[in-house]
């Protein structure tokens, strides 16, 4: 366990009596793509909400030495926690560049805010490259497609230089090869950062997860490698299902898509 790990211990979230998360503990480290899965309503999003300060929680969530719980949202972000949302939210009226520039802004001194932007910062160019949005620099974010918006969100996290990326269903609505491209992007990102992904796409999980935590009814049901988890009968019962397993099996039987098609969706 390094200094830069995200360690969540005994997290509790309650909504007027309803226990959405009831004592969840997990940890995530740089270099791994960590998956958080579980049935609908298991509390995955709520866990992310708690860590990012959106939901009030008890217990502990630490990034290295620092306790996250109890701080206001923007302070938590400044500690290096970034997230995306189950429904993409970018600034529709601003261009892709402006979106990224704002995301990159938190490191700048506040007086610099009063100056105009000159040129494109290197970190932004890199992020654009990584996410394949380079061609959309001047496009208002509002008219990007759903998937492009999700990439833009990831790009915003990159320029934000977040140490922890909490991604809530980042590939929802993407086609297979777009999923692949996103997965590979996450693997590259994870080399230096903590990446925690919430997903229902089991195929996607199988291909890109290093470790998996399964939540069920606000509690950790199972934890381990993809194989461990898939083999867990309880996980099969509440989440994967036998019928589901059949369909997903059928689908993974479909030939792997050609790699490196990311540039392909600029149509």
């Amino acid at each position, binding site marked *: 366990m390094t200094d830069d790990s995200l360690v969540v211990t005994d997290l509790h979230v309650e909504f007027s009596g309803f226990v959405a998360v009831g004592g969840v503990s997990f940890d995530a480290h740089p270099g791994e793509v960590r998956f958080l899965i579980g049935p609908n309503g298991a509390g995955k999003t709520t866990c992310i909400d708690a860590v990012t300060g959106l939901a009030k929680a008890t217990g502990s969530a630490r990034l290295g030495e620092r306790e996250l719980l109890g701080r206001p949202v923007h302070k938590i972000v400044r500690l290096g926690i970034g997230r995306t949302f189950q429904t993409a939210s970018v600034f529709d*009226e*601003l261009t892709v560049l*402006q979106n990224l*520039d*704002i995301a990159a802004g938190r490191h700048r001194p506040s007086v610099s*805010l009063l100056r105009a932007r000159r040129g494109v910062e290197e970190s932004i160019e890199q992020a654009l490259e990584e996410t394949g949005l380079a061609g959309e620099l001047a496009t*208002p974010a509002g008219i990007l497609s759903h998937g492009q918006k999700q990439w833009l969100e990831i790009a915003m996290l990159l320029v*934000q230089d977040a140490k922890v990326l909490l991604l809530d269903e980042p590939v929802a609505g993407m086609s297979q090869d777009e999923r692949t491209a996103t997965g590979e992007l996450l693997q590259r990102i994870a080399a230096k950062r903590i990446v925690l992904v919430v997903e229902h796409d089991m195929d996607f999980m199988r291909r890109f997860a290093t470790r998996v935590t399964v939540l069920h009814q606000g509690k950790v049901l199972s934890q381990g490698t993809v194989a461990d988890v898939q083999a867990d009968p309880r996980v099969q019962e509440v989440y994967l299902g036998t019928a589901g397993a059949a369909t997903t099996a059928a689908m993974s039987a479909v030939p792997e898509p050609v790699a490196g098609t990311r540039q392909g969706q600029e149509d």
Partner: protein
Amino acid sequence: MTKPKPWLSLSGIGVFAVLLLAVAPLVLTDHWLNNLGKYCCWAIAAVGIGLAWGRGGMLVMGQGVFFALGAYAMAMHLTLETAGDRIPGFMVLYDPLAPLPMFWEPFRSAGFTLLAIVLLPVLLAGLLGYALFKRRVKGAYFAILTQALAVALATLISSTIRETGGDTGLSDFKYFFGFVLNDPANKLMVYLIAAALLIVCLLAVWQLYRSRFGELLVATRDAEERVRFLGYDPANVKLVAFVVSALMASIGGAMFVPIVGIITPAEIGAAASVLMIAGVALGGRASLFGPALGAMAVGWGQSSLGSTWPEGWTYILGLLFIVVILFLPNGLSSLPARFAAARRRPAEQPAPAIAVAELEEVRS
């Protein structure tokens, strides 16, 4: 958001400055120059509203409050300057023996007055904005609250006749920091100061709009919560815009006093505050020149149409609100862009959803 080239806007400000500072004094009669000075004061406040509302999404319906701070600070000073050692005449009747109210005393000093014109709105807007934005008051709530504040202040002033002159307001100023106000040369000077301040305000927002702060402000307007997750506190972003707009309103109010020669609670109440908004909406809330030009146009309309056809002016004003907001949500200043876009390839034109975010604000 398609942005005009910065140098284009800057030269626009230059042309505007020449028109206001050099051409207008040459071609206008004293009366119309004085009126233009009055419009400039409204325009200064309007520039601030454009910043807070157009860019920041905060519909400030109570700018009259800040207009009042500047105006009454200035008016109290000028009243005392005129009264000399005596107690201002209007105070005498209600209580001939009582001294000058405590809060009037410091306004004898010119320096204090100027400081107050700047600091009072900054402090009040700072406090109010901090409290409101931290508690995430926005949208219609914010609009109605600020308007209620303006009404409350206007009522308070109306009802404190001895302290503030009440509904009659303060008027009949003879001097302006030592200069005799009746002297046409000094009147010209006062006008030039107001016009120059308008140019300064335009330059200030020009720089703000092209700065990163301008982008951040738009981002906050459109998705306040999202901004939080980028590590900014949106309350602070809005606060800065709100305070700057309050300061501008106060400056406009302060100059209104020597130019018009009277300030009354009616200039700060609900109707006056809404009229300021009308100008901004007419000109184009999010544009650089729109608010100022719109405010001047409304002022001019009031002066000239109000004379030739007073009942008609009310109908025209009403219709103006309806037609502009309904068909030109981005104001008259969006007309050129619309024509240009119509000529360009249709696909280039994004459909700006100007107030989609507001929908949530009102309802959530």
